[in-house]
């Protein structure tokens, strides 16, 4: 299992209820189901992935987070996970507010557009960055709203969202982000992992 999922899983307490938004083929869900909590559900847009989840014995609803999160009652899950999907939404702000409404704690991860390789890529090639975490060309990327770690932190501050834990991931190494190292982490990290509450 990839490092990002291990970090997410380690942030979840046993036997708590979890909703994985954009759960993909259910890899993380399955790990949580087997090791942490059987009270886990998924929401996934791809029919193929929904099939894979059912095959794994997981409960998944086929749907689009931007439309179907509305139907989930407020405070109905202890945790809501959104792994590397925020940038693909038409209205990320709306999705974040739904996450905060549904979950007591939300775990959001983003590919960091402030990562130095991304910056250099644009600086030297003059074309939209293509990297390991951002493998698509500008014309076929599902990513509509890229942001950097710093953008996300600023967003939380501006919206008065309680961002109580921020982690950075590079080359499978985890480190904490705080207000003193934010600019550095924004440059050196591939991925940001954030725990937020209302």
């Amino acid at each position, binding site marked *: 299992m990839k490092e990002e999922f291990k970090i997410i899983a380690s942030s979840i307490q046993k036997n708590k*209820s979890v909703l994985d938004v954009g759960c993909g083929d259910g890899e993380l869900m399955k790990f949580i189901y087997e090791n942490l909590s059987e009270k886990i*559900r998924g929401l996934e847009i791809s*029919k193929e992935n*929904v*099939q894979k989840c*059912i*095959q*794994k*014995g997981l*409960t*998944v*609803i*086929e*749907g689009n987070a931007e439309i179907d999160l509305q*139907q*989930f*009652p407020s405070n*109905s899950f202890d945790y809501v996970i959104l792994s590397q999907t925020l940038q693909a939404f038409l209205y990320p702000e709306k999705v974040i507010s739904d996450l905060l409404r549904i979950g007591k704690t939300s775990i959001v991860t983003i590919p960091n557009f402030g990562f130095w390789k991304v910056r250099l890529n644009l600086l030297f090639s003059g074309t939209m960055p293509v990297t390991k975490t951002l493998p698509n060309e500008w014309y076929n990327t599902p990513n509509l709203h890229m942001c950097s770690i710093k953008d996300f932190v600023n967003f939380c501050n501006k919206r008065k969202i309680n961002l109580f834990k921020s982690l950075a991931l590079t080359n499978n190494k985890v480190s904490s982000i705080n207000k003193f190292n934010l600019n550095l982490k924004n440059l050196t990290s591939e991925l940001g992992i954030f725990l937020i509450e209302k």
Partner: protein
Amino acid sequence: MNKFDNIKKIIINKSLKLDCGVTISNYPLAYETYGNLNQNKDNAIMVFHALTGDQFASGKNPVTSKDGWWSYVIGPDKALDTNKYFIICANVIGGCMGSYGPSSVDEKSGKKIGINFPVITINDMVNAQINLLDHFNIKKLLCVTGGSMGGMQVLQFVASYPDKSKIAIPIACSASHSAQNIAFNELGRQAIMADENWKNGNYELENISPSKGLSVARMAAHITYLSKKGLQEKFGRKLQERDKIKFGFDADFQIESYLRYQGSIFVDRFDANSYLYITRAMDYFDLAKNFDGNLSKVFKNSKTKFLIISFTSDWLYPTAENREIVIALNALNADVGFLEVKSDKGHDSFLLDIPDFLNAMKNFVDNSHKK
């Protein structure tokens, strides 16, 4: 010998008060089973049939000599694996394959009941079939499932008996029959009643049958079970055994010939009055009606795990209507999964060999049985 003599049935002594107020007792319920009930009696699956289905869900139907309507789903190693599970399917009351219905004979008069049969509901159908659990001494089913009207019975079953099934798979159905669907059913009924042989429902007394009306009803309904794309691909404007149009009202087009054929074979196996009663039961189906229109309240006490399945090209019971059930269950934080299967085959998809549908069903049932 009557063609129904060799089919399995139980006589239900326990009286049943129907929603219309009439009480019935000592009535027959015809059923079929597949696979074997295990010692713990925890491998039983109850399958509910659709409007024109019957208890012969798999294998050969002994009356029509055709394959069972859910042969793709039920059988050894199939989605509902008869090597593992005990499958029970009953003919609904109101039906015409041996269960109590308009073509049953009234003991007092010795005549067929016909139009004097009480109007029944989906709830009545389920309340009759629940008696099979006692018959087989099953405390709790592993699964209840069915498509279309079968799916409505699944929803009704879980609503009425929240602890009687571990899982439920309602397929291509709705919790409330739409105006469009009532309209199509009314069209079918009017076609039957407009046939001069219907005789106000008493055609059996004269040994005749409103076959033309029933056939038209079936033709109209059959169109609603398919999709525009499916029809276009299969038939297009192809002509029936001719090179050019004949400037008449004979079946020039293959689609016309196909529909006429579907109508003609249907009347051999189905009773016109049953068609009236069962379509009426579907029209009356509105699960949330007694719960202030709040579908969530219907399932409030249920611990049943759901997988709801719809099909992309089904315009009779479209995805949106299936999703309403998902939303209602979700609002309760119930264990509900949902899958919309891609298919061009319209509402009939639930009867067909569609791997994504069959695999999802198999995986869901097998995984739930293990746990």
